[in-house]
């Protein structure tokens, strides 16, 4: 399994808001453990999906040069189960603005218009926070693979101001 919990971006406003979607499919191995006979998309992986959506939103402000990492999950509340065949929509909004010290994000996850989860989280930059890291100049948080899979160089095509046919 890949550690990617979103499938594609559908809306993007630099420094303010991003929306991604994720399909949930029986092809995902972990669903057969969670739980046997009644596959349910794990709430913690929905937190990760929102974190990845918001991580790209925050990272793009610095052109993906900073190692943006999850520093805190202030609150994550789950209202509804998500099952194979569902597509969830993950919306991340920046609270205030993205600062060099970090960012606070308000997020919602919905499925067919129904509220699935409300999540608030915070990001900081790896080099400023947590345990010391053996220094590496390359940004392993936003690596080429991840950037290409999620088409992160084309996010501006999704902004509301993008002219039709820009994509």
């Amino acid at each position: 399994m890949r550690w990617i919990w979103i499938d594609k971006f559908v809306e993007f406003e630099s420094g303010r808001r991003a929306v991604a979607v994720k399909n949930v499919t029986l092809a995902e191995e972990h669903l057969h453990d969670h739980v046997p006979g009644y596959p349910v998309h794990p709430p913690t992986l929905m937190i990760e999906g929102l974190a990845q959506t918001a991580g790209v939103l925050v990272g793009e402000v610095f052109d993906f040069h900073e190692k943006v990492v999850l520093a805190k999950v202030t609150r994550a509340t789950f209202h509804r189960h998500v099952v194979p065949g569902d597509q969830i929509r993950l919306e991340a909004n920046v609270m205030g603005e993205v600062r060099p010290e970090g960012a606070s994000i308000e997020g919602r996850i919905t499925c067919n218009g129904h509220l699935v989860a409300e999540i608030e989280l915070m990001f900081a930059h790896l080099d400023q926070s947590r345990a010391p890291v053996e220094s590496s100049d390359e940004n392993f948080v936003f690596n080429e693979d991840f950037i290409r899979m999620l088409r992160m160089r084309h996010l501006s095509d999704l902004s509301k101001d993008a002219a039709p046919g820009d994509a």
Partner: protein
Amino acid sequence: MRFFLVDRILELEPPERIVGVKNLSLAEEYLADHFPAYPVLPGVLMIEALVQTAAWLVRVSTDFEKGLILLREARNVRYGSFVRPGGQLEMEVSAVEIAEAESRFKAVGRCEGQVAVQAKLTLEHLNVADEDPDRADIDAALRPFWQKQFQLIGGPQALEGPNGNPG
């Protein structure tokens, strides 16, 4: 990956307290993405490890009554040190309250004596039949499944404890 985040139960004092551990190994494939050349246990899997540890406490305290135990809310999740391959996360969970359909916990994960994660958790407990009356067979299958898993991860020995008192 297999979605089982508790490898062993070390201490078990139902309904109040439980201590479990999760080994982290390079064999876990998702680490290749998190992050390339710098593998660390993802923050949300630390939360999942705490959730699953708490779930074991619920199961033992309620005689494995409900088949489905899921995260309903996580609050105030803060991260400290990283967990690296070859390392072990030790999850200590204390129950604030375990009721029939819901339970609340304070949880801490440590690695090499340092706090890696702390969280306040609320779990929901239900039977599949509550969502879908025709699927009571799943609940019937889940009970022995969790009981077998409990044996696999040293649950009965943890219940006996260092004094050899059977729970």
